[in-house]
């Protein structure tokens, strides 16, 4: 409002200056890496550094998917599947479990409610490191080491999703539910057919953050997985990068290829992400 009246203000100019600088600092290395993924190995190492692949080649991307006996195995399609499967499962499970628990806290009065809420909430203050070693021993006792189970089930215990959805459910007017209950709908029916459909935006937001978190998880994945074909993209690529740094082209192509799906999803949903942070009032008050 202010700025429109005054035209281009000093604040706006310095704002654009800063944003352009940050944009440059972010895009410059990213573009360089993308360019390198289309270069032949010799050009990647050439000095002075250059940005235009000549000749441009798709060989690095093709190499990602071809097995070569002279190089450690790089089952990138399998890693992609592992990452997608694990992240999707974690997301579905967390949305299910957290929405049910969040609903209980938002709409019911029951003995122990406050106690449980603070007990669960206190877990947000406990750094996951304290529980890493014992969690590992539990997962090992279940025989889950090197299986999907080890990655899929433990994250459900996180309280953030429950808290986040409870906060959202509290903003839904009760009238909708009361009407449904008078019509003879069970609480489960209300939850399924009234609350959940009204909560799509919050659920999508939670889904995005959960999915990203699971996709990018590093330490826990490193601890509980040990065979090459069980790895997720995040861990697999890192280990490949560490063990086989002499083929930079493939590594660059791997970095670009593995980021692509998540960047595309992000671009589709970016409006939702920032809107929900704005609306959820995470930052407000």
């Amino acid at each position, binding site marked *: 409002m202010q700025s429109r009246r005054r035209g281009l203000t000093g604040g706006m100019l310095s704002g654009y200056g800063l*944003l352009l600088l940050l944009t440059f600092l972010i895009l410059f290395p990213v573009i360089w890496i993308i360019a390198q993924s289309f270069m032949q190995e010799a050009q990647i190492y050439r*000095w002075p550094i250059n940005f235009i692949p000549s000749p441009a080649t798709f060989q690095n991307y093709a190499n990602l998917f071809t097995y070569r006996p002279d190089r450690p195995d790089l089952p990138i399609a399998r890693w992609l599947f592992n990452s997608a499967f694990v992240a999707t499962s974690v997301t579905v499970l967390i949305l299910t479990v957290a929405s*049910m628990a969040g609903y209980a806290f938002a709409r019911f009065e029951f003995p122990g409610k406050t106690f449980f809420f603070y007990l669960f909430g206190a877990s947000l203050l406990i*750094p996951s*490191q304290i*529980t890493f070693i*014992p969690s590992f021993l539990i997962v090992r006792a279940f025989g889950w080491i090197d299986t999907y189970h080890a990655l899929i089930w433990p994250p459900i215990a996180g309280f953030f999703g429950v808290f986040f959805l409870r906060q959202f459910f509290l903003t839904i007017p009760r009238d909708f539910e009361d009407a449904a209950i008078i019509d003879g709908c069970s609480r489960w029916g209300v939850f399924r057919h009234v609350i959940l459909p009204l909560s799509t935006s919050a659920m999508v937001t939670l889904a995005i953050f959960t999915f990203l978190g699971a996709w990018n998880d*590093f330490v826990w994945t490193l601890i509980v997985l040990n065979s090459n074909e069980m790895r997720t993209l995040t861990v697999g690529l890192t280990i490949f990068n560490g063990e086989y740094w002499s083929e930079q082209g493939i590594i660059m192509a791997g970095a670009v290829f593995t980021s692509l799906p998540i960047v595309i999803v992000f671009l589709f949903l970016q409006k939702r992400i920032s809107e929900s942070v704005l609306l959820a009032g995470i*930052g407000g008050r």
Partner: protein
Amino acid sequence: MAVQTDINMSAKAQVRPRARQRMHWRKVMTPYLFLLPYMIAFLVFQAVPFVTGIALSFMRWELLERSQSFIGLQNFTDVFADDLFWQSFRNSFYFAVLTTAGVAVVALAAALALKHVTRGQTFFRVVLYLPVILSISVIGIVWGRVISNDGLINYYITRLGIPRISFLGDASLVIPSLSVVTVWWSFGFPMLIFLAALYAIPESLYEAARLDGAGNWALLRFVTLPLLRYALLLVLVTQFVGHMQVFGQAYILTNGGPGHASYPLIMYIYQTAWRYYHMGYGAAMAVLLGLFMLVIVLMQVRLIGQQEEY
């Protein structure tokens, strides 16, 4: 709530007593049923590990041995006498302080800039958030090439006639370098939090302050920043706790080196437990780290919460 269920009950008051009892029982149980799946997960993957973790820290527990024994405070006295523990702790702390400060400053500046621009806000917001969604492995690959000795930055430095800088090989530069990488990676989300908080400040406050003759800096200092207190608290706490647990950046880019100059505490715990199988000793370090972070968080909450109310 109570009123609504009462109406509900009286409407069905004529139902047979047995059925009514059953209905009552169902009503009592319903919330617990909604809560049950989460409770089980919490019990198995939070409560039990938490208690076991503390118990482990008082035990000699080697993964590969059959017998484990209670050794009292032995692990803790060993940890306190362990130079590597202190060094890795200092490394993590130094890293966390630098990175938290860096993230807070960049995120706040970016949010203020975003609020002031009228055109292209979406574009800038998307680009500035982009690094957040990249995985640590990609960050490691990209920045490994950017700050290596023959990387992008050193290329431009040498073209200016300055000798190359060994960002990751110099013991005094390695943690600040990792910190810069991490700020690049993670300021996007705090930026959104600040932006949300900025939009929550009523425009009328600025107008009133301007009428009183406040300049831009005064507006920032006396209107914006005090009202951003809770957002700032949230960002500082979550960032500090997160960065105190730094692992991936060091694991990928430096492997803790040179020497132990960038060896973080989590890497020490990780190697103690999963390379040398000293589960008890690792658990003791984890408990100390947890306690330390709890104290820091409570201190931050008190410090920022204490300032005058509006």
